[in-house]
């Protein structure tokens, strides 16, 4: 089945949808600038649509390594709690503190 042709330009609504998906607060100026720039980049990327890639496998990694695993299931010490929390914006000394959230993200 041929790949669907992607939308060549991004609408303001689409820019806002992507910004929310990426958790980015964008100014109106940024939104309009990115809409134009991303559209231009996507237009440029449209050259890829002309390439015949039937039967070409995708390359996710250039390495041919397989089954790279840790054989021993033995616990090892990591960071101390102080080290773990050291860079956090807010903690109670034991845990990382965030604004309350009840919705479970997934």
């Amino acid at each position: 089945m041929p790949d669907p042709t992607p939308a060549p330009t991004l609408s303001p609504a689409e820019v806002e949808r992507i910004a929310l998906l990426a958790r980015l607060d964008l100014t109106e100026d940024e939104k309009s600038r990115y809409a134009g720039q991303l559209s231009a980049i996507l237009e440029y990327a449209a050259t890829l649509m002309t390439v015949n890639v039937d039967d070409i496998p995708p390359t996710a990694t250039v390495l041919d390594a397989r089954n790279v695993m840790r054989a021993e299931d033995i616990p090892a010490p990591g960071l101390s709690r102080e080290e773990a929390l050291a860079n956090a914006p807010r903690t109670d000394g034991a845990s990382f503190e965030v604004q309350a959230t009840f919705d479970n993200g997934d």
Partner: protein
Amino acid sequence: MEYEVVIGMETHVEQSTHSKMFCSCSASFFGAEPNTNVCPTCLGMPGALPVINQRAVEFCIMVGLALNCKIARHTFWERKSYWYPDLPKGYQISQYQCPLCYDGYIDVDVRDLSSGNWTETHYRKRIRIRRAHLEEDTGKLAHAGNVSFVDYNRSGVPLIEIVTEPDIASADEAYAYLSALRDIVRYLGVSSGDMEKGALRGEPNMSLRPKGSDTFGTKVEIKNLNSLRAVRDSIAYEIKRQSRLLDEGDQIRQVTLGWDDARGVTVIQREKEEAHDYRYFPEPDLPPLVIDDTWLEAIRARMPELPLAKNDRFMRDFGLSGYDAMVLTKDRATAEYFEKVVAALCGEKNQGLQAAAKSAANWVTGELFRLMGATGAGIEHVKVDPAQLAGLIQLVDNKTININTARQVFEEMFASGRDAGAIVEAKGLAQVNDEATLSKVVEEVLDANPQQAQAYLAGNEKLFQFLVGQTMKRTKGKGNPQVLQGLLKAALDKRRSQ
């Protein structure tokens, strides 16, 4: 109207590996001080990278094999992106396109748990498994007023996600499925299976439709179920609630529900929301997995006989009832204990196998379970080893002690771990089988209780048991009850004819 329910189950099984899925931190998060089992990788520190725990992969394959799944020969990892503070990297390393295990099934024995008499009434149901894949768990959030606290000890603990086809057709079937799955993961040593501790998290999704319809109704999901009973009760509750709504012509709303255990009702946790956009793509930090025959067979060779196979073998070879087979195979250590008792009773020749199995089953499911229940001891802490229990059973079989004495002796064995023979000898508990001695006792009892004997002869047959009791009392419980009863009967008959 009559409705039928269509249920699919998504279950997360927390593995009991020692270390985490992608780092070497301890995976024993339960009860640990917050953020003490963490490292750059499971905290998602900038620049940290994952490394696969081989044991976790093998555990997942084992579960797949136990669920009769096909095992992917070539698979890879993907990033599943979403935002939540307990997900440190902003993505979860998971599997989407190529689950490690797929297209399987599980056969489960379903019992009608509402009838009260469910011990023997059951049917066997096949539930298809769509997929079982491996992923990493998230951290934990604790809510406190307008803030939440995040603990990443659980972050990165290996999880198996198991998804069924919508083959489950009742609350009892859902119960049976999860129960069987729990038994399996425990047999395999893959997980503690403790629902209370969140090591097994079953999330049913269900919909109702008019019986005979072939379209699906509106689906609801139930989350946060922390016991098998909660799974069964919440589904049963939802069937009733939704049936009533449908009868009244109302619509079912697509929601995620929670279960309020105390009140026995479901509560809406979340309304339907926009479809998630997880932006899956192959995890560039982890090379793919190739599972060849050699590896697969090595894993298969390490797997024990599974509960259902054992159940069926116990019924077939030992002639056990369905109930006995079920309770004896529910837990692997118990089943192994039982089999060792049987083996000790039969020796190597398997002589009298079924009789031996019957008495072993009676002892294990009776006295042993009773005392384990009373003391809270697990089978691995029972001081009586299987050979010792077999020794006790043999003392009963060869009439050295009677069954009542045997129960007393067993209590002692359970407390002290001593041999039955030693206890019987030390306490002089050997049974008296000698007829002459016992005849004398019978005569003494009848002489001492002339009124009761008269009344019996006059037709009050209940008094026979009283008289038997008196003879047992006089022998300090050591008289052979069968012999005493026969002698007493004969003596009374003789008096009747006089």
